[in-house]
């Protein structure tokens, strides 16, 4: 089956959409023109670059290259999740923990699926491994960023509650339970909303892409269902691990609350 080719002039034409946003920003004096332009150029550059990387990878499929690419994606996701966490510990403290949470969440979601649902031949088959892992890493990154952002802020704003519980003999886990619950609910909500509205509001990118490029819709839908379930597992596991790290950073071994310096 053929699909409508996007020629370079047509691609450039789509820049008009950014121009609309820039015009609106200027009119409302949002001061976002620079960010919008930079974002548009950077986003396009990154996608074009990954397009060539994938092309190269597909043509010279080698496990080392696939693993290298996945590692780079993981590091970028970790750095992004650990960046600018208000009221949290410094970036260098959060970064390795973000990597661990994102990595573990992604592994839990990806390994069983590639082992049993979408078998890969060979195991490093980049055509499946890279895009699906990328989606998982991205979801894990968002969840971990949300968890870090929220848990340190709420531990600070509700420090008196947490300490009152500790003073009654609560363990750190018990003392922080309320904040953890609120944090995880908030962090998992986007993923759960995605489950509830998929097909009604949004036709997910991967499915759309597959259909556009000729995959029978019924197969594309099956892929998408698997991916949705994977996204849920990723969010839950990465969120839980991030919470566990945050808890260890917030309390001493003697169950004392230590807030990161402002």
């Amino acid at each position, binding site marked *: 089956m053929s699909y409508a080719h996007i020629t370079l002039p047509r691609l450039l034409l789509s820049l008009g959409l950014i121009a609309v946003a820039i015009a609106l920003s200027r009119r409302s004096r949002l001061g976002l023109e620079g960010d919008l332009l930079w974002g548009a150029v950077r986003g396009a550059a990154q996608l074009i670059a990954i397009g060539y990387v994938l092309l190269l990878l597909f043509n010279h499929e080698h496990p080392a290259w696939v693993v290298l690419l996945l590692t780079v994606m993981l590091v970028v996701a970790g750095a992004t999740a650990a960046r600018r966490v208000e009221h949290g510990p410094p970036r260098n403290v959060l970064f390795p923990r973000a990597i661990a949470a994102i990595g573990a969440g992604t592994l839990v979601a990806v390994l069983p699926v590639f082992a049993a649902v979408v078998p890969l031949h060979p195991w490093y088959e980049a055509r499946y491994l890279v895009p699906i892992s990328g989606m998982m890493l991205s979801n894990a990154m968002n969840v971990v960023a949300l968890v870090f952002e929220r848990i340190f802020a709420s531990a600070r704003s509700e420090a008196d509650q947490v300490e*009152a519980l500790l003073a009654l003999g609560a363990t750190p886990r018990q003392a922080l339970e309320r904040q953890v619950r609120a944090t995880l609910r908030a962090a998992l909500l986007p993923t759960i909303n995605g489950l509830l509205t998929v097909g009604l509001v949004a036709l997910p990118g991967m499915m759309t892409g597959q259909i556009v490029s000729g995959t029978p819709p019924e197969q594309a839908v099956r892929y998408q269902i698997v991916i949705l379930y994977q996204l849920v597992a990723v969010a839950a596991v990465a969120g839980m691990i991030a919470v566990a790290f945050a808890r260890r950073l917030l309390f001493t071994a003697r169950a*004392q609350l230590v807030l990161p310096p402002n």
Partner: protein
Amino acid sequence: MTWTLEARELVVVREGRRILDRASILVRAGEAVAIQGPSGSGKSTFARALATLLEPDAGAVLLGGRDASQIAPTEFRTRVAFLAQQPAMFEGSVVRNLKTGPELHGKSMSDTQASDLIRAVGLDEPILQREARILSGGERQRVALARALANAPEVLLLDEPTAALDPEAGERIVALLRELRARGLSVVMVTHEEAHARALDGTLYRCERGRLAIDS
């Protein structure tokens, strides 16, 4: 003689400043101790370190002769109850607040026990069903006391329990503490108010520039 609670030469340094400078104290079973000092003298830091909510840079806290670091924090803090200056109320009714401590340790508290506790701190039973977060300062202080007593502690450690109250309510709290002490509890109260420190009618320590000394 057995000492219930002891602080041995506690040192706390923050940003290069010695907030506690080898502060020591001995509290016997059933004894009342007031620690009086001006604000900024380190007495609140001392109370928090004595409650093990803050790790001292040097020195030790002992309970019944055992180093606090050898006692599980959950056990230590059940035996030594700490009340902050303005105790945080948990979400829900007063009775929910009272049941928190026992539930943390897998125990339950009957409504009769809750009624007994609330009367023991001088409040009437109807308050049990009220939302804890909308209570007045004096009521909160008493509910926090009852909440701490629900764990059946051996020592009550209070940081400025009267500071946020009007003079009359403050005096009533001190009278209540005297009553609790008469029932066998050790009471340690940190305060900047001379009159309340004296009214506790126990051993009086002075806190100045991070050091503690018995007032003779």
